[in-house]
């Protein structure tokens, strides 16, 4: 066991864990931020997507030792009041069904729009292909990303 200092959603956490523990389980079970989900454990489904220094990563496949002193953002840190354009667009399009994958979907979408505020459908395919939704909300995810993009680039919907 070792101690690690994690910077998550602009808060500092001291955790004790085996260095090889996937960051996912530390975030969920030690820090207590359960919005980030376990889906596959092998970086195939994207349910555990968080931002590491602003880029989307699969927290199931990063050991906690590699995340120390890096800037991490989880779904809980995307906005304080559900006001991130992606969250608003997700509500507007009523995207989630079971909702389990949606934290990961939203984190991937937010990272995409951060780097590419005007994504084409093809850009969306590339950025979102790592996130599986078993309920099949892809059609609405695409629509919501375009909506969020419009808000972010025009300042209003």
């Amino acid at each position: 066991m070792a101690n690690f200092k994690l910077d998550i959603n602009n808060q500092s956490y001291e955790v004790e864990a085996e260095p090889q523990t996937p960051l996912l389980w530390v975030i969920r079970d030690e820090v207590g931020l359960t919005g980030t989900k376990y889906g596959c454990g092998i970086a195939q489904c994207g349910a555990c997507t968080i931002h590491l220094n602003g880029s989307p990563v699969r927290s199931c496949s990063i050991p906690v030792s590699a995340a120390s002193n890096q800037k991490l953002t989880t779904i809980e840190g995307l906005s304080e009041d559900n006001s991130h354009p992606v969250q608003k667009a997700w509500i507007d399009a009523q995207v989630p069904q079971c909702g389990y994958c949606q934290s990961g979907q939203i984190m991937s979408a937010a990272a995409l729009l951060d780097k590419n505020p005007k994504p084409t459908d093809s850009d969306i395919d590339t950025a979102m292909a790592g996130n599986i939704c078993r309920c099949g909300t892809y059609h609405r995810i695409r629509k919501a990303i375009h909506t969020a993009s419009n808000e972010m680039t025009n300042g209003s919907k």
Partner: protein
Amino acid sequence: MEANNINRRKFMKLAGMSGAMLAIGFETFAIEGPKVLKKLMAEDFVEGTPLNPFVVIAEDGTISIMATVPELGQGIFQAIPAIIAEELEVDMDQVTVVKSSASRKYGRQSIGGSRSVRTMYQPMRKLGAATKEVLIEAASKKWGVAKSALYAKSGKVHRTDTKDFVEYKDLVATAAAIEVPKNPNLKTKKDFSIIGKETVRTDILSKVNGTADYGIDARPDGLLYATIERCPTLQGKPISYDKEAALSVQGVTDVMEVTRSVYKNKNTGIAVIAETHYAALEGRKKLNVKWDNAEFSKLNSESYFREMKELAKKDHLNHKDQGNFNQSFANAASTLDVVYEQPHQSHSCMEPMNATVHVKEDNTVEVWAPSQSPQVQRQFARQLGIPDDQAEEKIKVHLPFLGGGFGRRSMNDPLEECFQISKELRKPIKLIWTREDDTTQGPFRQATVHAMKAAFDDQDNPTGVQHKMISEAITTQFRPSNGKIPFEVMEGISTHYDFDNYSIQYGEYNSQLPIHWWRSVFGSTNGFAHEAFIDEVAVKAKQDPLQFRIDRLNSEPRQVKVLERLKKEANWDKKLGANEGKGVAIVESFGSIVAHAVFLKREGNQVIISRVVSVVDCGIVINPNQAKAQTEGNIIYGLTAAMKGAITFKDGVAEQSNFHDYAILRINEAPRDIQVYLMENDENPGGMGEPGLPPIAPALVNAVADLTGKRIRKLPFDLQKV
């Protein structure tokens, strides 16, 4: 819009509660206009006067309506409260939807078979209407005017003679003492203001900010984590394992055998319990279990299908036997004689199977049940020596949101396993199945073989059709069929085409492989074979496949209307380009009719699904947006089954284990253009969770045939190789 305030006292109550409750959160969030999302509250801190188990009205005017059946994405969390609110005459933005726990006072809380709205529509309307009537009667007493001079609207009772009104909150004390009428008057459809309108789902907010509480998120104090090493052939018994090696991993506290019931089978696994999930997994790796697989290692998908195909050559139980098919086939000028086959599938809910149970030292229990059938109190009570009438008092069952279900969560094996561990250790235990456990251990969707035959006269007019379906059955895994066709196996063969000679048979194949309800169940497999073969018949008869169906469904006027609407909305008769193809299919299942038209386009080396148009007749619709969402989801789930996943067995072991080899359709492969149209009528509500699935695979392969001339009769197939 006013905030949904949680006062200090409630907050303290909330703060003292365990993690899953806290996860619900408690702020209010508003988006533009009337769309105000109320925060969710848990049943335990609802305040006010209950007028019945489902409706509680507080002095501050808060109207709480219980959501009592599990929400797995189908929107029932909103739909049932919406039905109550309609008849109660309150607006949805006056309502706080409250997630209930499991209790017999709410009636049946299990979900499956696209059943919830179908079975609860009338009872919940009556409940809402009866509640409204006692409030009107209370107002009648207050004012001393006849009930007929009063009406209810937006949470108030109004007088017709003056402009006076009184709010429900000021009537509730009186109303609670009034006997509830058994047969209240119900509204007519034209007066509906909530049913049939697109209301915002109250669970959505929590699903965009990470606060929605799933079973896997339960975090009671002192929690330990469990994982279970399982037999690769599912049913083999452990011969030996290295308990000490597992215990030597730092953080591992216990190792024990647990039993999992899969119908009649009791599967043994070795549970490793630890202070962290990671330590449990590391301990599990060291178990080195030797299994006795001898009896179960003979199972192979190849022989499984070979034996089913052999069985298809014989005659079986008749589901339908009209005219004389054999004679029509013998006398035919030409025939079709083909076999369709579909593999086993995994449900693969995004939230893997899990459970959290705390059997306490004082023999009371707290359960977080990610289950489609969560009323487990009596089952657990009996194992703890608790009398039935104390089961609910001693065993608290939380209903978390479910990260998908698709039928899988109607089997409570994870809860059963977790209960055993906690009962032994008397500590809170969270059991999480790995994705590999979830994919390989079943139970699975059935695999099927369909022997399809058609007879034609010398003008290529069809004179007879036969569909012989061979598969395992679900219900015969726990009760004998007694020579009858099990009720579940013929779902989705519901298009009663007008053929003079028409035979449908079912032959049961027996295997040790466990199968289970999987979204649309036999509708998914029957719908594919039946509607793809009907297309073959139509094409051989040189008729347009959509018109052929319309012409031969005289006994099904609702199906004809759906097809006619589809023809219009899909612009079906428009001539396609050389690189385009179209396909149609229609299936009635779980009380609703769905027809899909699939359009394909070849673009360079790629074939894309350029458009899917759907028409749905599910009778009266509660929330059109959600009916459409379910249909969109069914299209994707069905396309995955058609083009992606198959679970195959070699030497008794599933050959796929995770999403790298059991692929799920991804956004880049999903149709970008999906249009869903709903029929308007006054029929009773049908199901919506499943009926959109069965017609998608046949519509797809029919489009492939239109594009390429090639018939796909075995799923899954690769669309890029057609």
